[in-house]
């Protein structure tokens, strides 16, 4: 498929950015983190999804040829601009207590283009309903 001048021009409106991913235990940390990202850093291009986590594949003792039981985990994903990435990465690290054992891990990948995202002005707050 050829790129038309219109789509090429539109692509320039969608700058490169960073995608930050974070795996967390299924204890509500993901929701708290998303609220903090929005309120303290203005990040709304984010979400969380449920995953099966198979942790420490090497160190967990299992029967030969068997995998350890998977854990239900949450994977948080955040999209931000290049210049926000350092700050957001560190914010997530400390806010989600990734430095503590058993809290999960996080990583950052480059994104070659991303669209902006805005929310309607009159939606109620998910915590207060106001």
């Amino acid at each position, binding site marked *: 498929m050829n790129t038309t001048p219109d789509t090429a021009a539109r692509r320039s409106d969608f700058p490169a950015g960073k995608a930050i991913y974070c795996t967390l235990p299924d204890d509500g940390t993901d929701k708290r983190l998303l609220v903090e990202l929005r309120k303290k850093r203005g990040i709304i291009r984010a979400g969380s999804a449920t*995953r*099966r*986590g198979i942790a420490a594949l*090497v*160190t967990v003792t299992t029967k030969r040829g068997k*995998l350890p039981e998977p854990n239900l985990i949450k994977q948080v994903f955040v999209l931000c601009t290049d210049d926000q990435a350092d700050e957001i*990465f560190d914010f997530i690290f400390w806010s989600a207590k990734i*430095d503590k054992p058993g809290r999960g*891990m996080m990583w*950052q990948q480059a994104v070659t283009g991303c669209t902006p995202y805005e929310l309607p002005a009159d939606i109620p707050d998910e915590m207060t309903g106001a």
Partner: protein
Amino acid sequence: MSEIIYLTDLASITCIVDKDRSDAVLLAARDVGARAAIVHSAQSWGVRERLGAWGVAVETEKDVIMILVSSDQQDLIFDAIYQTAGLDAPGRGFMFISPVERGATYVPEAVRKRLGVNPE
């Protein structure tokens, strides 16, 4: 509060395989050094419907497996997964590697001391 130890030279391997092969793939990845994996279910659609009677040969229930590995392990783990998942056969699935700029996780105190990095 100690400093964050950023992990670099990482890659993510994502593999979409038949559900009944995902355990074998994970075991193969573990055997060559993978430390952790994230898995979720997915259902494929689209091309299968155009394959007519041959479409039944394509299993639509897939697992998406994501493994974070160090860059120097990526080829070894990629190859092990490819062979185990049988990705050289049509309709079995596909996989890809993408670069990871940095990562972070809990680093045990003993490792921090050994590296001489901000022990608590």
